[in-house]
């Protein structure tokens, strides 16, 4: 196979927050220190070697960065302070931007202000949706003056409209994410050997389980329990919210001051969203663990937006129960401005895309491992490859 060398890759990666690859002298401490390294995947040293050699194709086709949960053991013990964990993190950002065919992700990670502008644009679009059309939002309200005396959301944001809006948004984001993921699969499998057909089916379980539980994270030696549990709670929280909003909006969006039991699930999600994000923010300010030492604006925006989504959601809920009509409508608009902009920017282009890429990577790795095991006759060993 001909290898194309791209010497600009180290400089490029430093724009994504990984500027220490050149420090590495390939001693292999990081790989041996990593508790997730196994027979099938040997990282981070090999991936850092790819960076140093400018082997861009190898990097794009590698799953290694997605297998890392950033416990920080490698960075802690690296004799060169080459920060392998941070390089894996930067590589994940870089990979996200490589998978993304729109190029927005690339712009966003290379220039922090782009993400802010994108968020602001989407938020303004949402605001426009609530202010400009005659049969929705504040102008619809003008036709129902009684809705200003007592809360009636159907006179502000009729749930059929919102429901179909949700579906449309979910479809758009789903399309973007899936098309990017397809590119990821293409890059990973383009040089892979054939004969993995049935392994794709057999390992689907891995994809589902890993996607919901991130169980491999628990194998990390340092700090894994706490971070894994917090992350798992977050997953259940936004998973529940996603279901409530996209599937069960009919019940979850209550028109007036009455109470519906589905709000109980909403309380759980809100509590976890706000609690977990506050915990994450406090850890990032303390900077005690490696995983919290190098957060950039994109990382911060994500947790802040998650927190604000929870906060505006519960505020909206309280305003409705207290029968404060105008406050409710304003908060409703603000809540959607935050949530929709966060989803639109983060899910297909930003940090949140890991929700799909990471389990997909684990799945693809499992597929390849299964294929290799079945391809090697008993007793034979794989020929060593030195990089």
């Amino acid at each position, binding site marked *: 196979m001909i290898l194309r060398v791209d010497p600009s890759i180290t400089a490029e990666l430093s724009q994504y927050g990984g500027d220490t690859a050149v420090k590495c*002298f*390939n*001693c*292999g*401490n*990081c*790989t*041996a*220190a990593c508790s997730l*390294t*196994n*027979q099938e995947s*040997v990282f981070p*040293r*090999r991936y850092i070697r790819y960076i140093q050699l400018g082997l861009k194709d190898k990097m794009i086709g590698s799953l290694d960065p997605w297998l890392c949960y950033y416990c920080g053991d490698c960075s*802690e*013990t*690296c*004799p*060169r*302070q080459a920060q392998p964990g941070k390089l894996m993190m930067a590589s994940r950002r870089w990979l996200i931007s490589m998978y993304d065919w729109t190029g927005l992700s690339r712009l966003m990670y290379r220039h922090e202000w782009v993400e802010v502008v994108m968020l602001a644009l989407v938020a303004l679009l949402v605001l426009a949706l609530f202010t400009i059309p005659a049969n929705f939002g504040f102008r619809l309200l003008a036709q129902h003056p009684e809705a200003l005396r007592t809360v009636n959301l159907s006179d502000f944001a009729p749930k059929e409209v919102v429901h179909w809006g949700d579906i449309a948004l979910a479809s758009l984001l789903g399309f973007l994410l899936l098309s990017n993921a397809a590119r990821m699969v293409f890059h990973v499998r383009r040089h892979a050997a054939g004969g993995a057909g049935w392994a794709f089916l057999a390992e689907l379980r891995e994809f589902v389980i890993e996607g919901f539980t991130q169980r491999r994270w628990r194998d990390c030696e340092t700090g894994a329990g706490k971070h894994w549990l917090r992350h798992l709670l977050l997953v259940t929280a936004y998973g529940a919210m996603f279901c409530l909003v996209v599937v069960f909006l009919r019940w979850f969006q209550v028109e007036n001051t009455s109470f519906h039991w589905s709000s109980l699930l909403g309380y759980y999600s809100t509590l976890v969203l706000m609690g977990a994000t506050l915990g994450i923010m406090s850890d990032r300010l303390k900077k005690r663990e490696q995983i919290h030492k190098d957060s950039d604006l994109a990382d911060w925006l994500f947790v802040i937006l998650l927190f604000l989504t929870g906060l505006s959601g519960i505020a909206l809920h309280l305003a409705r129960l207290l029968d404060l009509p105008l406050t409710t409508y304003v908060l409703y608009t603000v809540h959607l401005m935050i949530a929709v902009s966060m989803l639109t920017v983060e899910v297909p282009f930003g940090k949140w895309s890991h929700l799909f890429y990471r389990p997909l990577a684990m799945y693809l790795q499992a597929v390849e491992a299964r294929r290799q095991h079945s391809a090697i006759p008993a007793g034979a060993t*794989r*020929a*060593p*490859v*030195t*990089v």
Partner: protein
Amino acid sequence: MTKIKPFYDGLVLGGGIAGMQAALDLAGQGFEVLLVEKEPTIGGVMVGLNKVFPTLDCSSCICTPRMAEVAHHDRISVLCYTDLVRARRRNAGFEVILRKKPRYVVEEDCIGCSLCELACPYFAPHEFDQGLGARAAIYIPHGNAIPQVPVLDPDYCMLDGNCARACPKNCIDFAQQAEELSVGVGSIIVATGLRLTPMGAKKQYGGDRHANVMNPLAMERVQSSNGPYGHILRPSDGKIPRSVAYVQCAGSRDQSIGVPYCSRVCCMYALKQAIMIRHQRHDTQVTIYHMDIRAFGKGYEQFYRRAQSEGVRVVKAKVARITEVENGDLSLRVELIDEGGRVADIRHDLVVLSQGTIPGWRPEGALPLEVDDDGFFAIPDIAARPANSTAEGIFVAGVATGPKDIPDSIVEAGAAAMEAAMYLDRVRESAGEMA
């Protein structure tokens, strides 16, 4: 009272191989030299070594004649068990305050008969054997120590007077006090040598926890014919180790423990010890885990090849972790880079951490000298005047200026002595002109 002259041409700080060589080279040019050593004996690190690389000569056979020469030299006075309190510039020379620590033995009367040592019933880990053997609470540091005068260790002494009763010269003095001495010197040579990086520096290696993880100086003692065991055995159970691992760069070239530099000697002493193990135990496997082998000196590359030809295995891998498993055996986790990056846990009976060298002494106001970030003495003009410190009239030799092997330390000691001699001559000439 210790008798020394009021003035010496040169003060040498440190009685290791570099300090002794500097003292001999300066005295050999006709100057009066005072050699000050903080330990109870001269000889430094070298006298505890088994062999030297790359010739595999006996280390003490090279070191002890120099010790004797220093001790018997007409123009060299030796003060052991003595610390430098401070040196202040006076005219072209220095006013030096020294503190002689109490041995609780009257040095002038002692005949070195060891009866006190044999009478003492209290024992402590033996410093000379890196804690592997035991010595009495009153003891002569080792068989080749100079002077052959015991020192009493108040931490372990129970003051029951056994030694005093046994002493034929009645020279045990439990009430002895530290003595402050003042002396004028014309120049100073600093040869304060090294310490090893602490065994607990890299916590993933557990050098301070696992019985069978040894420091390299302890391995030197174990391999020595006058060592604590007389054979190569492992500390925890006295088993003959069938597989020994050397972990290179365990105490240097590692920013995570704050020692970023190469210690220069570890590759070579590991190869040397590995060869010695193979010589003593032909069936013992020795594996050296390294990041790269730095065999840079005269005959060193040949020595590296010799080690491999004698069956020493050399594996490129930085050890990430050492775990104690059954029977005190140790498991080393490595990425075998030359085998396609396979991660493996490899089991060994005994592990030697190739600890690096850090400065043996920091001046901290005692001397008007600057040190570099790494703690070694700063040399302003390293290419042209490698023995000249940042202060006029003070010269530096050996590991005090940076990691170094024995041949380089000896060469540098000679250079320091020559610089000091030229300095003293210049001072004399200008004093003559003024007169």
